[in-house]
C-alpha cells in the first residue's frame, strides 16, 4: 500500500500532457459524472447563497434588500460580480452538456424498450431528473429575464446601479401566473436537488452503509428547506404579507 500514500506528482507528470489526461477523463462516463457532481456542488452553493440574500426581504427594514442589491451592483464590486457570474455560467454549461451527453449514450444503450417495465425502488425524483432539469433551466432563463434584465415586466430603479428590488419582486409576484411558475419550478428544483444532493457523493465515490442513509435524509431536508424558503416569498407577496 506504500504507493498509494505517496501522492505527490512528479515533474514528469507535466511532460505527459495534462490536457490529454483531462480529455480522456471527461470522455469516460465516470469522469462526466464527477464533473456533474462538482458543478452541482457549485450550483447548490449558489442557490443557498441566493436564497439567504432573498430572505432579507422579510427584514423589518424595508430598504434592507435594496441596500444589499446596491452593494452587489456597486461598480467597485463589478469584477467580483462578473467573475462569479462567469464561473456559474461555466458550471451550468458543463452540468448541462455532460448530462445531455450521458443521456444520449444511455438511451442508445437500450435501443429496444421493454414491453413491460417496472420501476422497482426508483424514487420519482430520480426518474424525473431529465424533466426537472430542463424545466428548472428554463425557469432560470425566465428568472433572469424577469428580475435581472427586466424583459418581462418593467423594472424600477432607485438610482444608477441601485435596483428597487423590493418593488420589482412585489409587483412581479402580484401576478398569479408569475408566482405560479416560480412555485412550480421550485418544487421541481426540490426534487432535482434531492436526487442530486446525495447522488453527487455516490458519483465521486463516497458511500458507506453507516452514513449513506443519513446523507439521503439530509439531502431531502436541505432540498425541502430550499423549496420552502424560495416558495415563501411569492406566497407572502400574494397573501399581502410583503408589500411595497
Amino acid at each position, binding site marked *: 500500500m506504500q504507493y498509494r500514500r505517496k501522492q505527490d506528482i512528479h515533474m514528469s507528470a507535466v511532460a505527459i500532457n495534462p490536457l490529454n489526461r483531462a480529455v480522456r477523463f471527461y470522455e469516460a462516463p465516470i469522469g462526466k459524472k464527477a464533473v456533474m457532481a462538482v458543478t452541482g456542488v457549485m450550483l447548490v452553493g449558489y442557490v443557498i447563497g441566493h436564497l439567504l440574500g432573498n430572505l432579507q426581504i422579510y427584514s423589518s427594514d424595508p430598504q434592507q434588500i435594496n441596500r444589499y442589491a446596491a452593494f452587489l451592483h456597486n461598480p467597485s464590486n463589478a469584477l467580483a460580480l462578473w467573475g462569479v457570474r462567469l464561473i456559474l455560467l461555466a458550471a451550468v454549461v458543463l452540468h448541462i452538456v455532460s448530462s445531455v451527453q450521458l443521456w444520449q449514450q444511455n438511451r442508445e444503450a*437500450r435501443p429496444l424498450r421493454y414491453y413491460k417495465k417496472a420501476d*422497482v425502488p426508483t424514487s420519482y425524483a430520480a426518474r424525473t431528473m431529465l424533466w426537472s432539469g430542463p424545466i428548472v433551466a428554463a425557469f432560470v432563463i425566465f428568472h433572469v429575464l424577469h428580475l435581472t434584465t427586466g424583459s418581462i415586466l418593467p423594472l424600477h430603479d432607485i438610482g444608477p446601479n441601485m435596483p428597487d428590488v423590493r418593488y420589482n419582486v412585489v409587483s412581479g409576484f402580484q401576478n398569479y401566473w408569475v408566482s405560479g411558475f416560480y412555485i412550480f419550478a421550485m418544487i421541481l428544483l426540490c426534487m432535482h436537488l434531492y436526487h442530486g444532493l446525495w447522488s453527487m457523493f455516490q458519483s465521486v465515490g463516497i458511500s458507506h452503509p453507516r452514513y449513506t442513509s443519513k446523507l439521503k435524509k439530509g439531502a431531502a431536508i436541505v432540498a425541502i428547506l430550499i423549496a420552502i424558503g424560495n416558495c415563501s416569498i411569492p406566497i407572502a407577496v400574494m397573501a399581502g404579507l410583503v408589500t411595497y
Partner: protein
Amino acid sequence: MRIVLHIWRQANAAAAGRMVRYELPNVNTHMSFLEMLDILNEDLIGRGEDPVAFDHDCREGICGMCGCMVNGVAHGPLPGTTLCQLHMRHFKDGDELYLEPWRARAFPVVKDLVVDRSAFDRLIAAGGFISVATGSAPDGNAILVPKENADRSMDAAACIGCGACVAMCPNASASLFMGAKLAHLGLLPQGQPERDRRVMAMEAQANRELFGSCTNIGECEAVCPKDIKLEVIARMNRDFLHANWIGRGGLKGD
C-alpha cells in the same frame, strides 16, 4: 392453477420478435419457474411447434445462466432470487406474466429469451482478474487479510454475472457488475498491484461494449439475486478517480 404467459418470441438475432400468448391450465405451485417453462415446451414440442429458448444450467441459483424479465422485473418479483429459484407458489391463479429477454445493446438476443452475454466475459478479460505467479502453493495465512475486507470481498464475489443489473437499469449500465468485480479483487492484498490499471481497463471496455452509465437509480441493487450493494459502484468511481488523478499510470519512472 392457471397461468397466462406472454413470451417474447424471436427466431434469431436478425429476426423481428413479438409477444406470443400461451395459456397453462395446470401449473403446480411446487414447480419452479423454469419447470413451468419446461412443461410449456413439452407441450409445444408435442404440437410440433418451436419450443421457447431460455438459458439455464445449475437451477440452484449459483451459475448465473438463467434469467428473464417477468412483468418488467429481472428474475421476477421475489427479491434476492434467480429465476430458477423462483417458485410458482409466489403467483396467483389466473396471473398474466410477461416474459422478455434482458434488453441492452450490449446483450443482443440470440433467440427468444436467450441473450448473448459475452460482453461480460470481455469485461473480465479486460481487467477483472489478478495476475499470479504459478508454482508451489504459498503458505496459508502468509498474506494477512482483515476479516472485514475478506467478508466484503466475499460479498462482492457472490456476483454470478447473470446480467439482471444491466437488464433492470434504465440506462443498461454494467456498473453493478463491474463494481462487484472491482470490489471483490480490490479489497484483497492480491488485487492491489493492478488496481489502477484494472478500473481503467474495465471502464474503457464497458464503453466499447456500449453499456450505459450509472445515474444512481438503484434498480440493479433491487433485483440483484446476490444482493450486491450500490456501494460497490461508489467504490468503482473512487478507484477510477484515483487511477486518473493520483495513480501513477502513464508516468515515467521515478
